[in-house]
């Protein structure tokens, strides 16, 4: 038995999930991610650095907010990735609950802390911006409250998937919690349109021209792309480590069984 097939899923026969299992093979994932990961991490770090240096030092200041507008280049991509990361967690949860992908289970566990960190960054930088601009560190409006709920959902998921002796039960419970929390994503997105909030509505929309000067928009977009690649790279690296840990555990178990027999 070669090492790469130790934790491969059992052959799934002629069911409709078969093509998806091709990507769920942990051995294939290790080979593929080993090639992609250095490029992903390097490009992500370079784009984030480009966007942040451009935004923090060279982009024009806002006519009202002055230099405080520069917090946006850290805050807005963190907010986008907080939601996008949760969407990734939810997709892994569907794959885990319906198709029992072993790789989706591990990825879901690893997305949790990364998403929570990005959400914390979003809340923290928003608060630092809110005090000088609004005059308050925090208000309980629909946007701020729904993002705080997102943060608690991440924390709840982190705690729940690790709360069981049997990891399979942790994966199932975590996946159910993550999918219930998906209700919060449209609330975050549309809170500023549905209700009166102190938080401003979206600047970048699908329907109209962005109400932001291009000289500010470009560094924001570079920063957002960089954040996305960095998020993906961290999750991929953590998932690789988790696959290898699981493989080591399986090999040790096999050896223990052989010596016992």
């Amino acid at each position, binding site marked *: 038995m070669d090492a790469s097939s130790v934790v491969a899923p059992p052959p799934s026969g002629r069911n409709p999930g078969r093509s998806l299992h091709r990507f769920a093979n942990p051995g294939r994932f290790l080979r593929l991610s080993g090639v992609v990961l250095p490029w992903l991490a390097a490009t992500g770090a370079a784009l984030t650095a480009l966007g942040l240096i451009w935004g923090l030092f060279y982009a*024009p200041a806002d006519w*009202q907010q002055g230099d405080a507008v520069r917090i946006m280049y850290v805050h807005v991509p963190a907010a986008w990735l907080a939601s996008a990361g949760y969407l990734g967690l939810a997709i892994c949860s569907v794959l885990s609950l319906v198709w029992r992908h072993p790789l989706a289970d591990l990825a879901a566990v690893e997305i949790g802390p990364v998403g929570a960190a990005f959400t914390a960054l979003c809340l923290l930088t928003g608060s630092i911006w809110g005090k*000088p601009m*609004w005059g308050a560190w925090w208000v309980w409006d629909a946007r701020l409250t729904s993002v705080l709920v997102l943060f608690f959902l991440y924390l709840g998921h982190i705690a729940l998937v690790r709360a069981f002796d049997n990891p399979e039960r942790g994966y199932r419970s975590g996946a159910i919690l993550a*999918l219930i929390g998906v209700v919060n994503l449209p609330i975050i997105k549309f809170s500023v349109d549905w209700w*009166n909030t*102190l938080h401003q509505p*979206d600047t970048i929309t699908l329907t109209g*021209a962005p109400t932001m*000067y291009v000289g500010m928009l470009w560094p924001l977009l570079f920063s957002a792309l960089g954040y996305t690649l960095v998020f993906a790279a961290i999750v991929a690296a953590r998932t690789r480590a988790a696959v290898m840990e699981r493989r080591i555990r399986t090999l040790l178990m096999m050896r223990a069984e052989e010596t016992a027999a």
Partner: protein
Amino acid sequence: MTRKRRRLWILLACGLGLGSAATLALFAFSDSLVFFLAPSDLAAKAPAPGRTFRLGGLVEQGSVQRSTEKGRPTAKFRVGDGAASVEVTYVGILPDLFREGQGVVTLGAMQPDGTFRASEVLAKHDETYMPKDVADALKKSGHWNPAAGPPPPAATWNTMEPKKTGG
């Protein structure tokens, strides 16, 4: 029906149920989810006199009077939303973004004389991000008066290259 197909259908059914439950709950609570009331909301559902609530809207052009009462800065201004407006008095320091034409959210209560006495004024920033020279160029050319209302459509200014004046 395979086990996977059955799990998928169960998940979709649960999602549908959860989604509609959440939608109904949000509709039912939508009145208490608003952060502030607009001046025109007050006519329809005025809070009981003396009850604290948040009033939000735009600071009306030409309505701001600043003075000093017993050594403390005092401001009087009208908060309007196009349809109605309310006179607000506030003792204290206004946030930096406070100006005529700016959105504000104030916390306080209606007084017997029909004015709103605020204990807190927060400035609401809108979704526009504009460098100073672009704003100056729009103001100088007469395309925008920040005290009178929101900026012109974004497509007219977001790629504009203002002429450098004086260096």
